[in-house]
């Protein structure tokens, strides 16, 4: 009897140690992933900050990406919030990259380029229209104390619309690659707003066993 109890206690202790180890591994893996993500975004930001003569939009995007990255670092305990903030920062950096690519030399336009640009701009137009809606939902996140005072959601909307308009003008000037890249940048700003809006909801609680 005493032996049996001793075996059971040993087994339970082993099981508990196993669960604790698995949890520690998972947390370690998550922390690792977050660290990798932060490093990746920091590199990206550094690369973008090296952009020569950044325009008004780029300055805005870099500043907001940097701020969001900082907030993501602080929110590492909340995996969901970290994920949304880091994605938003990533979207802004990609938008900045698209703007940079839009400035690259244009090749001679072909018939397919025009149609492709038209289709893409239609998508970006629809996306730009969503900016205001997501901006409205992003206010709780963007007006959080850690956020800078000028991080108004309206600025996101303004730059999203401005970038789309620039893309539309480029389309009229038959610079289809530039048109697509600027439209893409506009859509990325809206995606950042969407991620910020999603960040405003609380992370779902894990289900409890009955």
């Amino acid at each position, binding site marked *: 009897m005493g032996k049996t109890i001793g075996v059971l206690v040993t087994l339970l202790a082993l099981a508990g140690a196993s669960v604790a180890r698995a949890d520690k591994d998972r947390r370690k893996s998550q922390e690792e992933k977050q660290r990798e993500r932060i490093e990746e975004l920091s590199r990206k930001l550094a690369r973008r900050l090296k952009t020569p003569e950044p325009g008004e939009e780029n300055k805005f995007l870099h500043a907001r990406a940097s701020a969001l990255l900082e907030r993501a670092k602080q929110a590492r305990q909340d995996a*969901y919030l970290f994920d*949304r903030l880091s*994605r938003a920062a990533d*979207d802004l950096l990609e938008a900045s990259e698209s703007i940079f690519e839009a400035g690259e030399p244009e090749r001679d336009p072909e018939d397919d380029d025009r149609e492709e640009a038209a289709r893409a701009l239609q*998508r970006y137009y*629809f*996306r730009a*229209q*969503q900016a205001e*809606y*997501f901006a409205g*939902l992003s206010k709780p996140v963007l007006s959080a104390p850690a956020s800078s005072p000028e991080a108004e959601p309206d600025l996101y909307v303004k730059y999203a619309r401005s970038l789309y308009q620039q893309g539309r003008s480029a389309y009229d000037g038959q610079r289809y690659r530039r048109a697509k890249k600027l439209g893409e940048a506009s*859509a990325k700003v809206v*995606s950042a707003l*969407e991620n910020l*809006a*999603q960040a*405003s*909801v*609380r*992370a*779902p609680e894990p289900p409890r066993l009955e």
Partner: protein
Amino acid sequence: MRWPVPHGFRAQIAIISAASLAVTGLAIILIRDVISSTESTLVAGARQQCEAACRELKRQYHERSAYGGDSLQNLPAEAQDISLKGLAATVLRSYEGVEGGFYREAGARILGHVYPTGGKAPGLSEREMALLASAAAETERSGRAIRTGVWGRDIAVVVAELVGPGEGAAWALRRLVSLRDPVVEKRRWWLVALVLSAMLGMGGIVSVWYALRAGVAGINSGLRKLEEHFDHRLPSIPGEFGEISRAINQMAERRMALEAELRKQDRLAALGKVVAGVAHEIRNPLNSIRLALELLDRCLKKGTARPEEVRAAIAEIDRLDLILTRLLAFGRPVLTDRRPQDLIALARQAVKLVQDPSRQKNIEITFETDGSAELVADVDGPQIQQVLINLLLNAIEASPPSGRIEVRAGGEDQSVHVSVADSGPGIPESVQPHVFDAFFTTRPDGAGLGLSVSREIVANHGGSLSFQSGPNGATFNVVLPMERKAAGEA
């Protein structure tokens, strides 16, 4: 072709009532049809709108999946809801009155529900939710489903379209207010009001009909009485018919005044004729008397006077006396001995008084009555007898020897009549207009006063003297009222 038009009020009212009912019935059917048709059109329009919105939702969902960043499936439902709301709000902004979103079969969960043209989405009622669930379930089989729910005055049109296997369906909903329900299905008060108004209208028509009928009947009856007794007046009637009644009464008054004036003028004219006639008639006997007296004077001076001259003067004086007697009768309008008397007795007496002259011509006088034992009328007996004697003497004069005179007496409701028919050649047409003129005569020894005096006497009684003439003789009719009339005594 001419349509038969009913002239009676009753038929016209029946036709108007039937037409009113028919128009009311047709109006009800028409309104119902128009409402149904309008509602069907609205529902069809809502379906088309929802179908288009649903297609666009589905398309934009796929666009987002392809180009819009991280997959929604990996996000918590709340985050998915935000993204889908942004998408749906942008799509449905172009569809006025349409709300929509996405439906996940698992857990019957609605995501991205927005109503951008109607403010904040009010949420779906239980029955709308059931309708949506039913449509969404069908999309798993047929790809797309349309449902229309009608609950009293509420109508909801739901269109759902499968987004992708396991991804649920996009849906769009449009609410409508039933036009039929408030006016046809449940709230029938307006229908009751319509029927009541139609009934009230018919009641009004019937009432007007009765009023018209009563008014026309009153005027008809009054006019009939007025025809029989000109001093009768129509009773006071309210409304428009009262004005007609008053106008008729005024017309009767004016006519009576006019007739009185005419009678007065007739009398004056007759008086002028009488004066002329008297002057003419008196001058002849006076001349004869003067001649007889001058002759008598000469004979007396010579001592050869004879009684013939005196008798001739006396005869002329008698003739003057006769003329004056008849003139007295003509100028005596006042009836001094008027009282209820039997006209049959007066007529028989008159027939007896003309026996001598009738026998001289061997003329037979017959007397008939309508079976009445007596015919009492309020008359001046001697004057009426004088009238009948005049008529009988004229008839004897006009009839050939061995001729026949028929005297008939009878009575009606309010009057009595005596007719004298001769068997002579009748009165020539050229003479007929002057038969009753004073001093008009076709006989060399006649004074021309008999018939004019007779008519004056009868008129003073409120009666009438008339004649008919044909090739087989002339008939004079005396009609007298049984009772004295106030206006007739003038």
